[in-house]
């Protein structure tokens, strides 16, 4: 690895830690929200907004921008933290998360928040919406990309597999989707609630360019997206193995932290852990 690359990873890691702190602060202050899946997706969202995507926070509707769709909308805090940090809206707005009158709703609302590309929250809709957008871009002859993040529990929804067929049929190679494969959903382990494995051959069988990576490794996320971008004729699905609650020791791999806010003592502990150097 070159020196420049290793510096790059260091700065992305620092950014990821900052975003994690912001997520916890938002959820703690609102006394509601979903920490587990927000924390597991941090590296993916950070790699996209700070490295891979072409976008302009000062011009959120710039037609040539790459688009990101958070299909697992309950993890809005990770998206809001990144959008605020990028400058789509003032960071103080994060204090209004889940409050009446706020543009930062419990689940992403496209018509309310600058930088939010699609309204989600009902699981299973975002992949289809993203495919429709990607189809529109193809029709117009645009060359930007569409990044879509699904939860692993989410892909139990039948609509996701309808979308899988659609993406293949229309050869939407401007789509790079992720599954945040943290092996947990609301009621526990995905493999107990509704088994998904073997997941990779399913997506392969549906005709997607499929990868399986470490979803906390910037090197693997970025390298895989770069590889996927070179493949023509098929959409890409990156199954990103992650740890739900990543970065906070007592939240890691605990289903109970799916939709529970930390109390003040837990919040202090989490913030303390996240302030230590990596």
């Amino acid at each position, binding site marked *: 690895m070159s020196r420049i690359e290793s510096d790059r990873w260091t700065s992305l890691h620092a950014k990821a830690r900052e975003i994690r702190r912001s997520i916890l602060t938002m959820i703690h202050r609102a006394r509601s929200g979903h920490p587990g899946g927000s924390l597991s997706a941090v590296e993916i969202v950070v790699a996209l907004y700070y490295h891979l995507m072409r976008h302009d926070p000062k011009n959120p509707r710039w037609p040539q921008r790459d688009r990101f769709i958070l299909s697992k909308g309950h993890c809005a805090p990770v998206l809001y933290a990144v959008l605020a940090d990028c400058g789509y809206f003032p960071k103080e707005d994060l204090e209004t998360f*889940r409050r*009446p009158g706020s543009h*930062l709703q*419990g689940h992403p*609302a496209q018509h309310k928040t600058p930088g939010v590309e699609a309204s*989600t*929250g009902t699981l299973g809709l975002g992949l289809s919406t993203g495919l429709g957008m990607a189809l529109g871009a193809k029709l117009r002859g645009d060359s930007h990309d569409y990044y879509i993040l699904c939860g692993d529990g989410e892909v*139990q929804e039948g609509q996701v597999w309808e979308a899988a067929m659609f993406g293949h049929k229309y050869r939407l190679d401007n789509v790079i989707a992720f599954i945040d494969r943290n092996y947990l959903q609301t*009621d526990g382990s995905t493999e107990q609630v*509704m088994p998904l494995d073997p997941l990779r051959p399913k997506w392969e069988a549906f005709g997607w360019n499929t990868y399986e990576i470490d979803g906390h490794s910037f090197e693997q996320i970025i390298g895989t997206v770069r590889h996927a971008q070179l493949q023509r004729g098929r959409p890409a699905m990156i199954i990103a193995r992650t740890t739900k609650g990543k970065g906070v020791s007592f939240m890691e791999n605990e289903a109970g932290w799916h939709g529970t806010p930390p109390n003040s003592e837990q919040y202090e502990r989490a913030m303390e852990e996240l302030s230590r150097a990596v």
Partner: protein
Amino acid sequence: MQYKQTRQGYVDALIELARENPLVVVLDADVAKATRTCDFEKVFPERFFNCGVQEENMMSVAAGLALEGFIPFATTFGVFASCRAADQVRNSIAYPKLNVKIAATHCGISTGGDGASHQANEDIAIMRSFPNMTVLVPGDYEEARQATRAAAAYSGPVYLRLGRDTYPVVEQIHGPFEIGKAKQLAEGRDITIITTGIMVSEGLAAARLLGGEGISAELIHMPTLKPLDEEAIVDSARRTGAVVTAEEHSIIGGLGEAVAACLAERCPVPLRRVGVRDVFGESGMAQELLTLYGLRASHIAAAARELLKGRSNALGRTA
């Protein structure tokens, strides 16, 4: 005042029912911790089926279980039961009139922080419109428990509407529960207030407010929205001549419109509907949202005063 969850009333009844009847089975769609069917799972793990995040599949599977003679309680949030799986409910369950019970928690604006995507304010409208569907909207923990038992005793599809928050326990509604029967909670001469679901406590408070002003309000609570107790509505409207409805639901397609249609056909009197006024909700605390969206006793009382003012003006003109 004591506060309890209606969803807990549902699950407590399920556990009783399962002890009495081996045909009772429960399905959930990865929200068992939120709907509280996780408590049922602990007692009857072999009669609990977690479908994962698959509401549509769950509804048709429930239909299949009913065809095999079981009494399935398919449980998820109200938005997903009524909107996501609407086709499955309509065609797999309602059309063949199968014995499936659909239990929907997290209904209404008081779902709170999750915001508009999760606040079912249209579910009653959707479910009422399906032929063969019975719609129950209990007002508190105990009534939810009774309604669940009544749903199990009845043969046919039932939609049971429950909330997320804790809601006031209302002793006055704890009499025997009968599907299709309204409960008269107070007699009055000047106006009829009709509530459903958790709005019953606001209705009681509104009647007290109005009483303090010398307005005698009759209060009717309707835990069944379908079949509608038309006799109770018409009988009261004939005596008072004015009606206010109150529901934690859109003013479109819910209690208000059901009562309006009944009155228009059988006893036209002035009516005001208190409910969510054809808007999507937003994130917030349950209690503050009930206030923000105009679902308080003060709003019911204001609607009643407005109606009575209109009536005295009209009387003034004809006199």
